[in-house]
């Protein structure tokens, strides 16, 4: 691999990311899968970096899942999105940051469509007005929250308590980065680093001390694929794709996986358990899996937040071996205690995949 070659391409795909005043919208599913992630985002941006990040409780789904599962027409999803923009306009913001990759792709697609077909935009404005008497300005900047973390990666690194290195050997950790399909595959110039070799996550990994590994199926989908998972008859297809990715990254012995999409970390994490049950195979060291993180979780770890406050106990694949490798202290006893100190109960152990 010729690193300079990649850097050249990355430099071709840099997008302008304003460094403050963001209208932040959450994802529908991330809070259930990785509850602390979005919390971490606001904590890091607001408290740690002191940025102005605005949220509204009136924000709803962007309609992306329904749209990509072919259950609602384009006008509907556009009107929903128009409403989000209206909320932003009303709050007096023009930088739109969303935490969901599907939403990001959805917004990008819609803005591009409106750009190509202004008459459609007019129609949607009319529909929005008819439906909820709202008007909107199109966001000046559209970013995914990982774009912001990417932008602030160096500041985070400078505040870092830990680095993505094996504290015993000092060797950088081998990190797999997985980018959500809808981040840049539709509009390469909308993503940091383009579609083929995005650097939004690898940038973070580099600056936090890890070593990105480039494996053959790096570009491949995590396997979620909306209707592939939602329709149970297709789930075999969904898990097969995940399996393909793990088979491909296995020889590189990755220490961890970082993702920037709601679905990916969930499926890369949970399917490891399913694969271990089906094939009796695990991909981590001595019987464990490869821990999968959201970029916020990793940022949190690096900044020295308590692993259990980051919600890492909700991962299927045990994170303890990695925490030890990095040297992050944790208290096994408090793993399954909620914020209020109540026991949230220990899950049953899988038959193959080793957990703590």
């Amino acid at each position, binding site marked *: *691999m*010729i690193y300079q*070659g*990649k850097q*050249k391409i990355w430099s071709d795909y840099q997008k302008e990311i304003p460094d403050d005043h963001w209208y932040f919208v959450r994802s529908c599913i991330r809070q259930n899968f990785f509850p602390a992630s979005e919390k971490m985002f606001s904590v890091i941006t607001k408290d740690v970096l002191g940025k102005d990040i605005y949220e509204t409780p009136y924000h709803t789904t962007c309609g992306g899942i329904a749209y990509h599962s072919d259950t609602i027409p384009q006008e509907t999803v556009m009107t929903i999105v128009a409403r989000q923009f209206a909320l932003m306009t009303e709050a007096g913001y023009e930088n739109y940051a969303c935490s969901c990759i599907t939403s990001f792709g959805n917004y990008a697609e819609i803005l591009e469509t409106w750009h190509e077909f202004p008459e459609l935009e007019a129609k949607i404005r009319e529909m929005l007005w008819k439906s909820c008497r709202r008007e909107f300005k199109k966001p000046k900047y559209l970013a995914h929250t990982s774009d912001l973390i990417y932008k602030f990666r160096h500041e985070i690194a400078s505040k870092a308590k830990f680095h993505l290195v094996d504290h015993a050997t000092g060797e950088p950790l081998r990190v797999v980065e997985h980018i959500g399909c809808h981040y840049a595959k539709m509009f390469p110039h909308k993503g940091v680093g383009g*579609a*083929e070799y995005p650097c939004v996550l690898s940038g973070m990994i580099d600056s936090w001390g890890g070593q990105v590994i480039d494996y053959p199926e790096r*570009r491949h989908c995590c396997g979620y694929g909306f209707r592939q998972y939602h329709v149970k008859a297709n789930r075999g297809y969904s898990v097969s794709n995940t399996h393909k990715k793990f088979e491909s990254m296995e020889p*590189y012995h990755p220490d961890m996986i970082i993702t920037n999409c709601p679905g990916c970390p969930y499926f890369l994490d949970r399917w490891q358990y399913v694969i271990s049950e089906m094939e009796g195979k695990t991909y981590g060291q001595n019987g464990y899996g490869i821990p999968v993180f959201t970029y916020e979780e990793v940022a949190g770890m690096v900044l020295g937040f308590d692993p259990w406050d980051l919600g890492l106990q909700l991962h299927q694949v045990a994170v303890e071996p990695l925490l030890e490798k990095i040297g992050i202290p944790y208290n096994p006893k408090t793993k399954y205690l909620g914020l209020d100190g109540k026991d949230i109960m220990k899950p049953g152990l899988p038959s193959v995949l080793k957990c703590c």
Partner: protein
Amino acid sequence: MKDNIVIVGGGIAGMEAAHQLLLLGYKPILVEKSDHLGGHVADWHKLFPDMSPAKDAVKDLAEKIKEANIFLDTEVSFINRLKNGYNVMFSNGVNVICKAILLATGFDLFEASKKEEYGYGIYDQVMTNSDLEHWFNTGEDKRIKGKDIKKIGFVHCVGSRDIKAGNPQCSKVCCITAIKQAMEVKEFFPDAEVYCFYMDLRLFGKKYEDFYIKAQMESGVHFIRGRVSEVSENINGQVIVKTEDTLSGKPAKITLDLLVLMSGIVCNKQAVDTASLVQVKTDSDGFLKSKDNILNIIETDSKGVFLAGTVTGPKTVPETVAEARAAALAIHNYLVTLK
């Protein structure tokens, strides 16, 4: 003292035109931006269909144009329109009044790195057709030298017939070049498996089809109909190529020790700038615009400005040479009518 003629571009088109003009009794001025004559052909190793050495062809032409005024490492800085003539200023400070200008500025090879997904300049074992010719000529290439090459792939249509790459046109010569190179590498690595990934095989020229059959029968080249979608690298540094085997209607993948990208012919951007100095526009395909694409590809809408070779679109060597001769004659006739 005969009328001055300026030939821009010292490739085979410019050289052949100069040669013909010398025979017609003119003393053309040939400017070449690089430090040597012969253009792209000079960098090539052997030429199809006779596999004759390219350098011989160039040497032969160079011999014939000794008499012409040749400026190497020289470019055209600007051109002023005069009454039936032009005032051409060269980068070396020379200033020429001429009656006719021949633009034989040739083509650029498509920048393979623009097709990111093919990983040129990113994966160690990916090279272009011209890199391979360079290796044929010099034997110097870290991608091949001292490597155990067992499987080699050729990707046709890299940057050709590709709207996304900005070149809808077919580069015309890549199919036969790929087959030529496939057979040549097979000579270097007799027990290597060679694969050609193609969309269509466009083997229109003299003896091209024979080449194809020879590649199948003697070199045992595997032809796989399907355009490569993406390339990735495995832990051993080999490249993994993904394509659709459209003949069986199934996706296919293969691990290769060397991948050769057949970079296509695209219009020479510098040529466009030079042409704009004499109000010669570009055609819809991005190449320079002739007066007429059927009966008069040589002349332009600007009086006294002529075109020859690949400035007007992809061409083979014999086509280019033939066009250069035609251009020389056209210039001669033009100058006669001026009197």
